[in-house]
């Protein structure tokens, strides 16, 4: 009641003002999430004049002002405020400013620049965040992601300047693996890959995503393992008002849908991405000893494995997905509020690829064909995700929130390779059946407290507990050789074998930080501890021929391994390696201190230092393999990391940034363990190297950025990185191409990054619905292996996976009055090393792929939206090449999908 009175009073006042001048600022204030208007919210001029107005019942406002430059604050109760600086008002014109505000997790404080966090889902919010940030960063929000066909974080991140995705690895500025880390709400994400490099980005469906941010310069509050950048994933927050949403999608792919593809006889729950137990280790398998053919139970155990070895073909189904979410905020007096968001998503898709592959020898500069084969691959991918976000605001100064996220991804696949094997001088066909399931459970409790008389002390804390799990039950490998018309089972490694593995990583930690003013300085200090435990356990079994009649080896697998033959002619034998079990422990304790100061009115400097104490411990040794367990590894390193960031406001709309830091890249558990393990995927052995030391990296950045309007941007930047002791994988044995790790002599990476976003209304008012965005990165890197070259062919080469150029272009046409939005996206990367060559064979490069996607969004009614997408419209092929010869080629095909989005409330 009081507020209404106040509003009427002010309306009256502004009314008087309006009568006098016909210039000023006007616009509309909306909820960033829902697009709903925000009513009765203050819009305050904080510099340049004394003026104040509140939005009307449509969220609109008009602030009459004389010509000049103004800073204006937009705010609303339960929303995070935004300051727009340097708004120019020209004679006789109203400057338009439409602002979307994000529901709060923090609360309002008397800070001049940003209040809490800016709404980062929207494009304008992200740009504002970038403009105000202390570090060089690039980002995309859910608003942009929704304009693309991208379905998860792994798909979407490639739209960010100089980010690429190779397989499941994200590469930032051409640097992948250990050089690109991923954090969720500020906490490092554990890997689901036994070697520990890949962050499972595909476990983040975009229904749960708010923002992807790539931090490109280091600052002291970030983790010190920093090189190419840090990909930050922010999950969705709760909405301010009751909101429900249901999304249903259906899609087709030209390679898989209704097409014949490889599959195999699985379990009854496969359609849910769950194994019904049919792939489990048979109960009869001894759990106290290795299985030998002399075991009294050998026959019974051997018959316990499911007798499915071969693939068959079936028609692929259309892809589908469903996601639902509900959220709301309940408010009480005194700023007390409780918000929640719950969402769940499920999707299923079939994939099929048919690739032509060959391997080569080299004689002088000529490649001579060796193995020539075709790969037919069929898979069903199932994803399930759920998120709960609860926030409780105690009062305007204190809030806590809880995030619980669960995601599961299953890839059930069958692959058939067939062709000529030179090693065996015979035709071959090899089948691999594999069911791989990865789980992530991430839980975090965090809080913010504004202390002191004016809330100038900001205390933030968080505690997290996460679990990842990667399971591969019953991966089956089978190979036959055919010579002179006789096709026989090949008894060898990778044939007649079954592999069962589980990887579990549990990680818990906490951090606390405090921001406080100290004289003219803004100080930030904090500490964190993160402990994780990682266990890998696998067992392998091989079916070996113990009979007398080799004619049995010519039977199809299911007949060969029938109960009739298992026992007298075939028995399963344990093939578990000593290194098939390991237990790792890792701890990271860190502390940091940084100071931010305005050196001059326009120059801000942030100086900080971080100290990290990092410990890795690894014990390995499977009880199902005999022999001497490898020595355990225990190593602690202490790394200090300085950081300097300078921001010079060239104008109110343009910044010049410079940054320097000295960071670290550490080896993974198994890279420093003095043992050999088998990489079943690439069929080669990998040796750890106990002499490896952490790499240190000098990072230097320079960037100029200009924000002409809140949705426009032009930025030019460059970076230089010098690696000391970079850790490189090198080929150490010529026979199978086994690999090891070395600290190379050195590496350098230098790059140029350009980005622009503009509205074409600059060109002509008629083009105002058109917006264009583009980014381009040019990167040059070189690693010098020196004496650690071993038998790798190149002594000096680009870093593996680094593209010399990466470009993105997107054009959006938005016709608000029709509720229509069309976006065209283009992405390309330059050729990059996919496999390092050895023993004179040249490096293999993945060739550029031009990818064009199109999306159309149409509002059908107040609560119904339709989105149509088409991906890879140019139907480009993925090609790997050695010298000028294709070694692997396939077509991923075109994908088309339709999605209906229903928001009844």
């Amino acid at each position, binding site marked *: 009641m009081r507020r209404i009175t106040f509003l009427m009073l002010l309306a009256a006042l502004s009314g008087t003002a309006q009568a006098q001048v016909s210039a000023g600022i006007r616009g509309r204030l909306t909820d960033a999430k829902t697009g709903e208007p925000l009513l009765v919210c203050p819009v305050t001029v904080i510099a340049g004049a004394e003026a104040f107005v509140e939005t009307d019942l449509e969220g609109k406002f008009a602030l009459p002002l004389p010509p000049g430059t103004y800073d204006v604050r937009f705010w609303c109760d339960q929303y995070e405020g935004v300051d727009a600086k340097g708004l120019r008002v020209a004679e006789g014109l109203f400057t338009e400013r439409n602002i979307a505000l994000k529901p709060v997790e923090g609360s309002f404080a008397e800070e001049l620049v940003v209040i809490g966090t800016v709404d980062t889902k929207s494009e304008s919010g992200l740009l504002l965040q970038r403009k105000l940030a202390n570090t060089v960063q690039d980002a995309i929000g859910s608003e942009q992601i929704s304009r693309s066909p991208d379905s998860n974080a792994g798909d979407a991140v490639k739209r960010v300047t100089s980010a690429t995705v190779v397989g499941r690895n994200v590469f930032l500025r051409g640097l992948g693996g250990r050089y690109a880390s991923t954090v969720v709400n500020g906490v490092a994400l554990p890997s689901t890959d036994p070697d520990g490099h890949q962050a499972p980005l595909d476990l983040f469906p975009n229904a749960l995503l708010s923002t992807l941010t790539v931090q490109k310069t280091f600052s002291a509050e970030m983790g010190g393992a920093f090189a190419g950048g840090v990909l930050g994933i922010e999950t969705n927050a709760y909405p301010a008002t009751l909101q429900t949403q249901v999304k249903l999608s259906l899609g087709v792919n030209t390679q898989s849908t209704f097409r014949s593809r490889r599959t195999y006889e699985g379990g009854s729950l496969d359609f849910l991405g769950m194994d019904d137990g049919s792939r489990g280790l048979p109960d009869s398998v001894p759990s106290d000893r290795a299985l030998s053919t002399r075991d009294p139970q050998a026959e019974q155990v051997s018959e316990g494995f499911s007798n499915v070895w071969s693939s068959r073909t079936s028609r692929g189904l259309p892809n589908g997905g469903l996601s639902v979410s509900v959220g709301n905020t309940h408010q009480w007096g005194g700023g007390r509020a409780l918000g929640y968001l719950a969402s769940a998503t499920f999707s299923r898709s079939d994939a099929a690829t048919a690739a032509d592959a060959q391997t080569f020898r*080299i004689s002088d500069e000529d490649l001579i064909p060796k193995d020539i084969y075709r790969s037919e691959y069929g898979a069903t991918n199932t994803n399930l995700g759920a998120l709960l976000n609860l926030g409780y605001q105690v009062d305007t100064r204190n809030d806590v929130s809880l995030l619980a996220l669960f995601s599961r991804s299953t890839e059930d696949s069958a692959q058939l390779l067939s062709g000529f094997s030179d090693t065996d001088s015979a035709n071959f066909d090899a089948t691999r059946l594999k069911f791989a399931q990865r789980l992530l459970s991430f839980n975090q409790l965090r809080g913010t407290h504004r202390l002191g008389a004016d809330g100038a002390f900001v205390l933030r804390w968080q505690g997290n507990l996460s679990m990842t799990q990667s399971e591969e039950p019953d991966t089956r490998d089978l190979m036959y050789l055919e010579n002179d018309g006789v096709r026989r*089972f090949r*008894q060898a490694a990778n044939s007649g074998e079954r592999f069962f593995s589980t990887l579990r990583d549990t990680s818990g930690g906490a951090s606390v930080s405090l921001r406080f003013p100290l004289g003219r300085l803004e100080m930030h200090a904090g500490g964190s501890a993160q402990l994780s435990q990682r266990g890998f356990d696998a067992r392998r079994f091989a079916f070996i*021929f113990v009979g007398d009649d080799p004619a049995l080896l010519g039977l199809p697998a299911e007949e060969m391994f029938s109960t009739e033959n298992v026992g007298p002619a075939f028995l399963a034998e344990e093939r578990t*390696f000593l290194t098939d079990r390991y237990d790792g422990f890792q701890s990271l304790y860190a502390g940091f201190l940084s100071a931010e100061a305005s050196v001059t009115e326009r120059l801000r400097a942030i100086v900080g230092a971080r100290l990290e104490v990092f410990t890795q411990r690894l014990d390995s040794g499977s009880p199902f393999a*005999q022999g001497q367990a490898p020595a355990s590894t225990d190593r602690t390193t202490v790394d200090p990391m300085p950081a300097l960031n300078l921001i010079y406001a060239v104008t109110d709309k343009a910044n010049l940034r410079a940054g320097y830091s000295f960071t670290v890249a550490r080896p993974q558990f198994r890279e420093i363990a003095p043992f050999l393990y088998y990489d079943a995927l690439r069929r080669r052995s990998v040796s750890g190297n106990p002499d490896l030391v952490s790499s240190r990296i000098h990072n230097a950045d320079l960037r100029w950025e200009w924000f002409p309007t809140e949705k426009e941007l032009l930025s030019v930047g460059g970076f230089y990185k010098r690696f000391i002791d970079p850790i490189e994988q090198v080929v150490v044995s010529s*026979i199978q191409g086994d690999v090891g790790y070395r600290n190379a002599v050195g590496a350098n990476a230098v790059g140029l990054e350009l980005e622009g976003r503009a509205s074409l209304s600059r060109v002509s008012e008629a083009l105002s619905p058109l917006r264009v965005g583009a980014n381009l990165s040019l990167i040059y890197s070189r690693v010098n292996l020196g004496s650690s*070259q071993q*038998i790798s062919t190149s002594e000096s080469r680009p870093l593996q996976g680094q593209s010399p150029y990466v470009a993105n272009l997107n054009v959006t046409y938005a016709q608000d009055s029709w509720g229509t939005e069309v976006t065209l996206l283009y992405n390309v990367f330059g050729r990059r090393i996919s496999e390092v060559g050895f*023993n004179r064979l040249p490096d293999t490069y993945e060739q550029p792929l031009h990818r064009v996607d199109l999306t159309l969004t149409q509002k059908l009614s107040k609560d119904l939206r339709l989105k149509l997408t088409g991906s890879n419209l140019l139907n480009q092929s993925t090609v790997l090449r050695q010298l000028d010869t294709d070694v692997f080629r396939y077509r991923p095909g075109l994908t088309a999908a339709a999605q209906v989005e229903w928001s009844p409330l």
Partner: protein
Amino acid sequence: MKSVRSWACAGALAVLAACGGDDDNGNTIQGDTCAPGQASCEITQDITSDTTWTQEHTYVLKANVFVKNATLTIEPGTVIQGGVNTSLAITSTARIDAQGTAAEPIVFTSVVPEGSRQAGNWGGLVLLGKAPINVQGGVDNIEGYPESEETQYGGTDAAHDCGTLKYVRIEFAGFRLGGNNELNGLTVGGCGTKTTVDYVQVHRGLDDGVEMFGGTANLKHVVITLPDDDGLDWDQGWTGKGQFIIVQQNRLLGNHGIEADNSASSPNATPRSNPTLWNMTLIGSNRDKGSAAQTQGGAILRVGSAGSISNAIFAYFNDFSLDVAGPDSIAQANAGALTVKHTTFWSSKVSYDATSFAVKSSSDGSDFNEWMKFGPEAEATNSVVDPKLSKGLYVAPSSSNPKPVPGFKPEAALTGGTPPADGFFDASATFRGAVGDVNWLDGWTAFPES
């Protein structure tokens, strides 16, 4: 003797905790101990100082044992046993001096009790040296071990001495060390001309019998019986010599008698594999074509290997006799750098001709035909006649013949060429096959089933 004292001293140290440290060995006593009178001594650690193993003890390998910067001397009659995940590797900074006698051979065997032993019970014996190999950079790492300086082999010392193996038997070896790599019974990587391998038997190995990775080491009096894969395998530019070599293939599983490569990835890399081999007997399992678990041939010479084989017998191979595969070895054969002379080929199942003599591989890429090159019509010193060597075929034990012993002297009289008198070859061996009038296998070889 110094090292015997060192072992004895180490034993005493363990037992009595008293041992003078002032003697001439000067080494810090470390590693495994083996007390006098102790029947079985476990070897769990690398050997880093000169050491002698005596026949008084049975040495049980408990790990992958590397000998570094030291000489391992093994006395006649000594038995060394290995289990799962164990092997013995003589690194390029070390030597082995294992000289048995025909009466008292040195035996490397499985720790599993007799009767239950199988191929692959333990790893095998690995000799590494610094003689040239043809991989890029000249240095490679032997597979199957975590790579380190100790696993390296190859270099520029063509005369490198890996040591001496004489009257040595290696049985039931070939365990998969890691990954998909099965160790050979005897692996010789980059060993040089000063190395001696003479009177060595590899019996029932899971992978190849003997594999030569480059180097210049010579082989003499080598018996490879019942390997699960190839008999003699060479690769990476082996340029040594060999005389009196026997391969008896496995009944069901065996692959080829000889598998020869120059370099899998660059077939014309140098030094090119180019051994000179005289007096070989290669015996297959005499089954019908296509009826064993693997394709079985006398020799497959591939990817750029050159070499010369003389005074050999290729008999009873199931699928083919001699195959030169791939354009690069074919080029060597056409240039006269890959020769087979004074050799007798025989199969009791097929009569050799242009199609049955060799296999046609899709990678051959030319009209090359082995029969037209090595058959008796093209090479007059070669013949297709029955060597009457069926006693060399594998026979399963039976109640009437519980411990069958093969015989490798052909009953047919087959005169061959004269080996060069260069100090290595026995120039008097003008017969075909590895065994003439003197049965040099007597006494020290053994053919246990399990």
